[in-house]
């Protein structure tokens, strides 16, 4: 799992127009690191031919 300083979270938020104080950044850090870590693991499992689904509902398989 990555370890991200609170300053980095504050900076990334500012880039998106959000104002985070250090208390909010601290509260966000754990869930954010956890999600990024899980997304990194997820990326490892994706088969190369898995594209995002086309717009619209799922296809009928049966």
């Amino acid at each position: 799992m990555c370890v991200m300083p609170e300053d980095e979270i504050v900076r990334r938020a500012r880039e998106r127009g959000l104002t985070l104080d250090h208390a909010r950044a601290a509260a966000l850090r754990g869930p954010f690191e956890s999600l990024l870590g899980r997304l990194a693991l997820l990326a490892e499992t994706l088969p190369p031919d898995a594209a995002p689904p086309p717009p619209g509902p799922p296809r009928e398989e049966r």
Partner: protein
Amino acid sequence: MSHADLAFLSAAELGHRMARRELSPVEVARAQLDRIAVAGARLNAFLLVTTGRALAEARASEREIAAGRARGPLHGVPLALKDLFDVAGLPTTAGARILAANVAERDAGVVERLRGAGLVLVGKTHLHEFAFGTTSDNPHHGPCRNPWDPGRSPGGSSGGNGAALAAGLCAAALGTDTGGSIRIPAAACGVAGLKPTLGRVSRRGVVPLSWSLDTVGPMARTVEDVALLMDAIAGPDPEDEACVARPAESFARELEAGVSGLALGVPGEWFFAGVEPGIVAAVEAALAALEREGARRVGVATPGMAEAHTAHHAILAVEAAAFHGRWLRERPDDYGDDVRRGLELGSLVPAVDYVNARRMQTVAQRTFAAALARADVLVTPALPVAPLRVGEPMSREPEVAWNRLLTPFNLAGLPAMSVPCGFDAAGLPVGLQVVGAPFAEARVLRVARAVERAVSWGTRRPPP
């Protein structure tokens, strides 16, 4: 008939008796409104009670039925709407301070349909702020409470619907399900709720949470009522490009066909490991009852569920952050803390990770297509644990999230339903989840109806 007995009649039974003029829509509406004033307030189930409007609609229903112009099986039936649906002239607040002054100019697509079917709107129900959460513990309106144990959450985000149905405050309700928001309160409150196939029901006029995941669906006390509500709301909406152009159909057509000869796919590890023993016992007892009626149980593999839950979380958070971006920048303090934190989290997720999460949607669709090639439906518990205590924080971590058995089916866009299948040792309701192939809602409802018949609750109701 007492008000209490009247309040717990099914929507189908109410409609039937009103069509035969054995019951008056006005009498029924008054009975519901009286109960809402007492029990609804105690449970905090409604954000808006539409007393005058409900009585006017009920009188109009009575006149039409008397004149031989009955509109169908739900004409005159009391309806509650999650406060996420536009009703012309009424506020749509999404349970949020940010939308406190938002008054709808036009009915949502599904509201137009329900109005056409003659249902009587008694009010708009409590929800988790902006539908972004599973407890219905709302910082602006206080917590909604579970009729079976008021110290517990009714689930969410459509918590007011679950509480109102379980307490006999309405006979029909409409909710939304992006990550379990129909099925969680259905399971937690002991009622039935269906998340249709993504794109099956119009979302026009409904405050969005996540465009890739949002669905609109019915909740009621019986499976038949859910089917009748689906008949009323499903169908193309030329003004909603995400709504498929499929012709109307009867969702009740297979309802009483039973399960003899059907293959029930029961997935393993993710859907049973870590689930409370009382919940597993109730689900296993229901499965055994279905097998006695001729269904066949087959094991199916569903790998990748932790990744599916993670992908769902990322997509929901990112798309919600996109919808809320301007408000989040300009009015962050008007959000409750948990919703604000979820939106801030979504704002920070890198684009590559979002795309990979969307790719996981395709993987989940393939996984469930393979499982459903071996079975007619999948059957799982709906919730892994009993309803959370009021104030107990929810987690979004995949191993412990309250909705972790539900989100994979949102990700894949499949129809999925929670139907009551018994009680745990503490006397709290247990929900069983039935999942079908895309657009196989009628099959899902058929199996759910068989569960309902097999584990009849008799006259058991929440404490008054």
